[in-house]
Structures are given as C-alpha cells and as structure tokens.
C-alpha cells in the first residue's frame, strides 16, 4: 500500500466511516424514498436474480423488489443493523474495496451514493472495477449513482468549474442528551426551543462528479457504459464488464 492509498484510507475513516456510524439513526430517518431510476432498475430484474447493494446505508432499496435476492453491505455496522431487517434480503458489514464475494457470480449490483465518498480517483476506479468483477461476464450489470458537481438549482448550488472535493456538514442536534431533531439543512422547528439543543456538526467528505467523469471512471475500470444520465443533482450510469454481450 503506498502513501496516497494510506492517506486516502485514513481520511475516509474520519470523514466518511466515523460520521455515518455516529449519525446512522438520524440519517436513516431521513432516507426512505427510493430514487426513480434505482426503483426502475430493480423492478426490471427477472425474478430470482441475485445481486449486491454496495454501500447500502439503511437498506431502503431492499424494499423495492422482494422477488430478487440482494446481499447488501455497508461499512457502518449501525446502518447495517437497520438494513438487515428487510426480508428476504441479507445485509453485512464490509468494505467496498474488500468485498467478500466471488468473481463473476452476480446478475446485478447497485451502488447508490457511495463511490463519491472515496477520496482519490484511483480508489474510485478501483471500487468500480471491484464491482464489475463480481458480475457475470455475459449479462451482469451495475447501476452506479453519484453526486453531481452540476447542481445549480439545488439548495447547495454547486456548479461547473467549482471545487470537486468538498466537506458537507451534517448537523445533529442533541435534545437533553437525546438524539432528536438533527438535519443536514436548516428547517423551522416549532416544537423545540432552539436554545435547549446542543448542536454537533459532522463533516462528510464528497467528491462531486463533473459531467462525463463517471463514464470515464467506468471505462478506466475496464467496463462498458450501457446507459447513463442525470437525475436530480446526481449522475448515474449502468455499467457492465467489458466483454458484455
């Protein structure tokens, strides 16, 4: 392991892994609506397909299709505990760059809002290559979803030409020691007195993808892009191993 690799790992430990472990419950409470492209992808799979949800978070995509079998994984054990409740699927704790699966085994994979937490291009490409390697060579496909740099109309307002590596705060408010009304955005809150709340701010690392970058990374990982697009502040692509039919 070289120094950049080590640094990338340590940086992500502090600005991704530790943060999600701390904010798991509250984060999960705000993540329940599946994105349409992901929903469509999962519903288009033939019954009995077997696949992976890499960086599953609270496992909200495990609710979409109960006729396929998904082995979901995340680095945060607190999030996996929540994800593990969604039958008939499975959830386990694993690192994206060291997944405990055999190559060429799966019909599909989804990686939603995960790759953008890796802090170097090498690590992002390595993660995509690792996902593609687990797919069946002939017809396996992976849906990858990442945050876009081009999101002028979002409340964060980032756009073309701006810095792509950012820290995004997650504000957790403690009410008398109890986790309650934290938000990653400002919101009016009438039932609690703001003065009673103690704020704790966690900084999450993101790499914001510029247009075409996800596709470039997939090709660099030895894959083929079957389809790609933009959906509500995110870039997405459906990728396959290069020797796909």
């Amino acid at each position, binding site marked *: 392991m070289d120094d950049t690799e080590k640094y990338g790992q340590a940086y992500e430990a502090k600005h991704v892994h530790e943060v999600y472990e701390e904010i798991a419950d509250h984060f999960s409470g705000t993540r329940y609506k599946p994105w349409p492209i992901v929903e469509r992808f999962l519903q288009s799979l033939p019954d009995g397909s077997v696949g992976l949800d890499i960086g599953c978070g609270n496992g909200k995509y495990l609710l979409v299709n109960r006729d396929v079998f998904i082995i979901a994984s995340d680095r945060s054990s607190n999030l996996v505990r929540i994800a593990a409740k969604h039958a008939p699927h499975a959830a386990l704790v694993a690192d994206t760059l060291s997944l405990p*699966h055999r190559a060429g085994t799966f019909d599909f994979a989804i990686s939603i809002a995960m790759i953008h937490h890796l802090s170097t291009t090498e690590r992002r490409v390595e993660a995509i290559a690792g996902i593609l390697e687990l797919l069946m060579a002939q017809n396996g496909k992976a849906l990858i979803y990442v945050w876009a740099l081009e999101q002028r109309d979002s409340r964060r307002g980032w756009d073309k030409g701006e810095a792509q590596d950012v820290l995004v705060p997650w504000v957790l408010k403690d009410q008398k020691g109890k986790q309650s009304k934290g938000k990653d955005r400002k919101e009016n809150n009438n039932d609690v007195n703001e003065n009673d709340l103690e704020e704790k701010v966690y900084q999450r690392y993101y790499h914001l993808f510029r247009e075409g970058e996800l596709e470039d990374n997939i090709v660099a990982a030895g894959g083929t892009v079957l389809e790609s697009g933009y959906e509500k502040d995110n870039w997405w692509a459906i990728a396959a191993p290069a020797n796909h039919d």
Partner: protein
Amino acid sequence: MKILTLNFLTCARKTCKSSPAAFPLHPRDAELEIVETEFNALFIQNILPRVEWDALKGLCTELGLTNVPPEAPEPKELFDTSIKSAGIDEKEKEPTQLTRDLHNLLLETTIQSGKLVCGNCGHEYAIKEGIANFLLPSHMV
C-alpha cells in the same frame, strides 16, 4: 445471517478470492436461531439453481443440520403436480412440503453468533447479533 447468504460469500482478502479453498466459509461456534419470514415458493424455485449444493451440504453438516436433500431438488418436486392443480396459474400452484423445508433451511435458519473461517488463510470473521463483519485489519488489505 441466513444459510442462503453463505452461498454467496467468500473470504474478503484479495489473495484468497480466487482460491477454491476459500469457499464456502466454515461456520464455527455457531449459535443458530429460526427467524420466521414470509414464505414465497417461487422465490425458492428461482433461487435454487444458484445454490451450490455440495457446498450447502458441507455447511449444513458442519452446523449439525441434517434435513438437507442429498441432491439439489428438481423444479417439479417443488409444486404439487396432482390433477387438481394441473392447468392452474403458476402463482396458485400448491408448494410441496419440500419447498417449505427449503424455505426453513435457506431463509429462516440463521446464525445469530459465531465465526466464519476462511479455509484458505484461516482468518475468522465474527457474526454478532446475526450480522457478519468482513472488515479486515489494515495489514491484511
């Protein structure tokens, strides 16, 4: 951790992944529990061709589970093919007891705690509260 999940797991170390000795992982000190879950006979039918039967049999022997058929069941064994169910919609066919037993074995029998051991490098992965942890110490990555 469901028994079915073990069918799709191997050691997380890069040096083990291509080794046949790393699959399946071997359960050790396993505490089993039946966790009831909704029965879906078509799910069992669809998933069955993906199960590596010899590996499953080996795992079950190690876990002390004796109710595993010696050969992978044929699709026709999963549904009642008597005259009264002939010609009706696939979804309304009556599943056999074998299908219910497979559901119980693959989806409802879970390892609540214990270890999964790699047959190639010997590394042990812990299972706690039903969840397996595959994070590696940094010197093994």
